[in-house]
C-alpha cells in the first residue's frame, strides 16, 4: 500500500451514521469485531433526526388485537405485494423487541395512561402502532443510538466522504474516502462493508431530504458490481411544505393526520373520500362524524367502533390525491392542499406536534393551532436499493451488506409511514451481525488494489484541473429539473424515454464540471462528486420506471393506469453491464403457504376486542 495515504483497518466498515448505520455498528461491535463508522456529516445529524411520526411495532399497547401477522399483512398490502415476504415477516416479528431495546438504552417514548409506550395511528396501519416522542421520534432514536454507540468502542470518522468501494478480486476489501475538512484521501481496509447511506432525494428539487441524500451507497454498490432492485419505487410524501420557497418540500409529519388532521381543497371540500381505493374503502370512516368520533376516541386514548379518517390512506394514494386536486385547479394559493388540525384544542396540538407548531410559526408565519397548513407532495424515500438477503443483509457482492433506506425489499412498491424507523433497527442489527459473522469467517484480510486507488484519486481531483467547465451547482439544478418534470409522481413513456436521454447528457456535464478554490472544506468540490452519484441513481430510477408499464404503489403511470399481473411477479434488477446500465426483470421470491394463508383468511379481525 502506498505510504502517502492515511490508512485505517477494521473488520467491518459501516458507511452512513443514521439509524441503520449506528444500529449496525453497535451490533457488529457487540459481536467482538473492530468497527469503523464513516459519515459525511457530524455524528447525530443524519436524516434519521428528521423522522417525526414514530416507529412502527406491533406492541399492542393501545390495540391489543395487534400482532406481527397484522403488521406483516399491512406492510405487504402497502407495498402492493412486491415486498420480499421474508423481510416483511422478520421486520414485523422483531420490531417490538427493537423498540423495547431502544427503551432499555435510554430512549424515552411518550406514555399511555398506564405507563407503557404510547402508540399512534398512521396511514395503512390497521391498529395504533407507532411508538413516538411527540413529533421528534427520529431525534430520540438517533441520540439514543449515538450515545450507545460512543460507549461501544467504535471508531467514528465524521465528515468523511467515501467515493469508491475497493475490492480484492470479487470480494470487498475496503473503501477510499476523503476528509471533507482537509480534502485529503484516506484508505479504509475492511473485510466487510455495510452500506447505510440512505436515499437520493437530492436528485429532485422538491424534497424532504438534506444535502447528504445523493445516492452515494447505491452508486458505490453499483460500481462494485452489486444488484439494485425496485428503483422505480420512489415515495413522494403527501405533505411537504409548499411555502415559503426556501422551505418548499420540508416535511410535515404524517403524525398531523394521525392526530386528526383534515385535508381540504380550495373549495373547502374534504377530498380524500373520493380517492379511497374501492377495495379498502370499508376500512375508513364513511362520514365526517365517524371520522371525528375516531379522533375524539384517539385523543382520549380510548377504543372506538369508529373507523379511521380517510386522510390515513397510504402515502402513495394521498400524494396522488393532493397532486390531482391541485392539477385540476382546486389547489391553495401556493399550489397545495389545506391540512387542518386547528379544530383540536391548541394545547393538545402543541403537545403532540411541537416541532410542526414551531416550524410553521417560525418559517411560514402560520399558527397551526388557528390556521390550516398548506401542503403538497415532496420527494421523500427510496423503496429501492441494494438487493439483500433478508436474514443476513448480505448484498450480492461478497463482503457487502446493506440496511435501512439503502437496502430494498422490505417496503415493496410503497412504504408505510413508521416502517422506516423499525426497518433501520431490525435490519441495521441484522446487517451488523451479518457483516461481523462474515468478517470473522475470513482467514486473511483482502487487499485493495493500489492501481484502483490511484485511478480513483485522480478522478476525484479532476474537476480542480479543468480550465473550463460548468459549476456543479448549475448541473445539479438541471438534474433536479429533469427529475421533477420527467420522473415525478405521474409518469409516461415519452417523458421517461426523454429522461434517459437527458440523463446521458447530464452525466457528460457532471463529468466535466469545474470547481474553484482549494480542497479544504470545499462544498462545490463535494457536490461535484455527489452529483455523479445522483445522475447514476437517477438513471436507474428512470430506466426501471420505463420498464414497469403499470401503476403499482408509488409508481404511477398515466399511460398504464392499472396493475399488470405479470409485472406483479417481478422486481427490476439494475446492474452494471459491459455496455452500461442493465435493467432485468427477476422473479419475486415466493411466499410460503403458511403466510399466504393469512391473506386468504380475509381481512384482519376488526374492532372485536373490548378492553
Amino acid at each position, binding site marked *: 500500500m502506498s505510504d502517502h495515504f492515511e490508512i485505517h483497518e477494521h473488520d467491518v466498515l459501516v458507511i452512513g451514521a443514521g439509524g441503520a448505520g449506528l444500529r449496525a455498528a453497535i451490533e457488529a461491535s457487540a459481536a467482538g469485531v473492530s468497527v469503523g463508522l464513516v459519515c459525511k*456529516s*457530524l*455524528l*447525530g*445529524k*443524519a*436524516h434519521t*433526526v*428528521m423522522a417525526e411520526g414514530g416507529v412502527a411495532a406491533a406492541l399492542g399497547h393501545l390495540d391489543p388485537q395487534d400482532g406481527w401477522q397484522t403488521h406483516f399483512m399491512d406492510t405487504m398490502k402497502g407495498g402492493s405485494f412486491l415486498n420480499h415476504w421474508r423481510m416483511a415477516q422478520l421486520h414485523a416479528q422483531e420490531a417490538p423487541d427493537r423498540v423495547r431495546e431502544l427503551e*432499555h*438504552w*435510554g430512549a*424515552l417514548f*411518550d*406514555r399511555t395512561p*398506564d*405507563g*407503557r409506550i*404510547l402508540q399512534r395511528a398512521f396511514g395503512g396501519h390497521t391498529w395504533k402502532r407507532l411508538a413516538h*416522542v*411527540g413529533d*421528534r421520534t427520529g*431525534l*430520540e432514536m438517533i*441520540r439514543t443510538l449515538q*450515545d*450507545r454507540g*460512543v*460507549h461501544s468502542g467504535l471508531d*467514528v470518522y*465524521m465528515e468523511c466522504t467515501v467515493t469508491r468501494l475497493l475490492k480484492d478480486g470479487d470480494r470487498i476489501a475496503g473503501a477510499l474516502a476523503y476528509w471533507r*475538512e482537509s480534502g485529503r484521501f484516506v484508505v479504509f481496509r475492511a473485510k466487510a462493508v455495510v452500506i447505510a447511506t440512505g436515499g437520493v432525494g437530492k436528485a429532485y428539487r422538491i424534497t424532504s431530504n*438534506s*444535502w*447528504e441524500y445523493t445516492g452515494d451507497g447505491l452508486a458505490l454498490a453499483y460500481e462494485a458490481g452489486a444488484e439494485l432492485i425496485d428503483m422505480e419505487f420512489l415515495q413522494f410524501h403527501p405533505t411537504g411544505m409548499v*411555502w*415559503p*420557497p*426556501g*422551505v418548499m418540500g*420540508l*416535511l410535515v409529519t404524517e403524525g398531523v393526520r394521525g392526530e386528526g388532521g383534515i385535508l381540504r381543497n380550495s373549495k373547502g371540500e374534504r377530498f380524500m373520500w373520493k380517492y379511497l381505493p374501492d377495495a379498502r374503502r370499508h376500512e375508513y370512516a364513511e362520514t365526517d362524524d365517524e371520522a371525528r368520533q375516531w379522533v375524539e376516541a384517539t385523543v382520549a386514548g380510548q377504543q372506538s367502533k369508529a373507523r379511521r379518517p380517510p386522510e390515513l390512506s397510504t402515502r402513495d394514494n394521498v400524494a396522488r390525491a393532493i397532486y390531482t386536486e391541485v392539477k385540476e385547479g382546486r389547489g391553495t394559493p401556493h399550489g397545495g392542499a389545506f391540512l387542518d388540525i386547528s379544530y383540536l384544542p391548541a394545547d393538545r396540538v402543541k403537545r403532540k406536534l411541537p*416541532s410542526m407548531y*414551531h*416550524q410553521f410559526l*417560525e*418559517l*411560514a*408565519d402560520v399558527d397551526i393551532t388557528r390556521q390550516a397548513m398548506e401542503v403538497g407532495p415532496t420527494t421523500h424515500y427510496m423503496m429501492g436499493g441494494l438487493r439483500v438477503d433478508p436474514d443476513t443483509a448480505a448484498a450480492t457482492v461478497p463482503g457487502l451488506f446493506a440496511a435501512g433506506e439503502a437496502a430494498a425489499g422490505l417496503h415493496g412498491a410503497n412504504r408505510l409511514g413508521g416502517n422506516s424507523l423499525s426497518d433501520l433497527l431490525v435490519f441495521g442489527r441484522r446487517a451488523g451481525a451479518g457483516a461481523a459473522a462474515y468478517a470473522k469467517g475470513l482467514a486473511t484480510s483482502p487487499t485493495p488494489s493500489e492501481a484502483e486507488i490511484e485511478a480513483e484519486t485522480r478522478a476525484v481531483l479532476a474537476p480542480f484541473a479543468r480550465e473550463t467547465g460548468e459549476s*456543479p*451547482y448549475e448541473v445539479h439544478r438541471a438534474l433536479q429539473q429533469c427529475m421533477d418534470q420527467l420522473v415525478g409522481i405521474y409518469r409516461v413513456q415519452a417523458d421517461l424515454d426523454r429522461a434517459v436521454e437527458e440523463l446521458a447528457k447530464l452525466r457528460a456535464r457532471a463529468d466535466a464540471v469545474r*470547481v*474553484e*478554490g482549494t480542497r*479544504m*472544506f*470545499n*462544498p*462545490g*468540490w463535494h457536490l461535484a462528486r455527489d452529483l455523479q452519484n445522483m445522475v447514476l441513481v437517477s438513471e436507474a430510477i428512470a430506466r426501471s420506471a420505463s420498464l414497469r408499464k403499470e401503476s403499482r404503489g408509488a409508481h404511477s403511470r398515466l399511460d398504464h393506469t392499472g396493475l399488470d399481473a405479470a409485472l406483479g411477479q417481478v422486481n427490476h434488477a439494475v446492474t452494471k453491464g459491459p455496455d452500461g446500465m442493465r435493467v432485468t426483470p427477476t422473479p419475486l421470491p415466493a411466499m410460503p403457504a403458511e403466510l399466504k394463508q393469512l391473506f386468504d383468511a380475509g381481512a384482519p379481525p376488526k374492532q372485536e376486542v373490548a378492553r
Partner: protein
Amino acid sequence: MSDEAGGTREATVRVFRGDASGGQEVEYKVPVEPGMVVLDAIHWIQAHRAPDLAVRWNCKAAKCGSCSAEVNGKPSLMCKSRLDHFAEGEPICVRPMKTFPLIRDLVTDVSWNYEVNKRIAPFKPREGAEWKWQQSDVDRVQEFRKCIECFLCQDVCHVLRAHEMKHKFAGPRFFVRIAALEMHPIDGEDRTGFLKDTAGLGLCNITKCCTEVCPEGIHITDNAIIPLKERVVDRHYDFVRLLWNKLRGKPSDAI
C-alpha cells in the same frame, strides 16, 4: 409577513471568509424571496458567487443543529434566521461560532464536544426497576432530550467563550445531557462527582446566556443546571449526610 411579490429586494450579506490564518468579511448582494432565511442566502451565494463557501447544514428545519453561526453577533441557527426580521437595508453579518477553532469560512472544529460527551457515564437502569412510568414523570427529561446539539449554548457561554476553560468545564449542552440521565425515572448512576470534579458545574454562575440562545427553548439554567447544582450540594456538601456516611463507615468522595 414578507412581501409576497418578493424577488426585487436585495439583502446585503457580509460573510466571514477565511481560515485559521486569517480572513475578512466579504459582502454579497442577495435577491430576497418571501420567507427567506440566512441559510437560503448562503446557499444562493454558493450557487452564484462563491461555490467554495464552507458551511455546515443538513435538515434546514431547525431539527439537526448543523447550521450554527453568529448572525449580527447573535449565536443563531441560520435556517431559523428570517431575512425579513432584519431592517430593510441593514447589512446582515454572518460569522462562524467564536468559541471553537475555525476550520474555514463558517465551519468550526466542534470535535471537543464529542470528546466531552464520551466521558459522561451512560444510562444505567436500576436493577429490577419496572419499565413503567407516567408521562408526567418524563415531561422534564423530554424537554432536555429536545436538544439538537447545535452547540450555540456552548458558543455563548462565557466560561468557554471568554475564559477558554474547555479543559475544566463541560458546558451547558452537557449539563443538559447529564440532567436528562440523572432525572430519567429509572437511571441508577450517580454523576454528581463527575459534575463537581470534572465537568466544573460550579464554574457556571447562572447568567442564563445559554437559555437565551437555545433554539429549542430548553430552560437550560432553571431546569437543568440549577437542579444539578442542588444535587451536587445534597450529595457532596450536606454535612448531615457526610456525618451519617462516616458513622455507617461508608466512604465519602467529598472533601
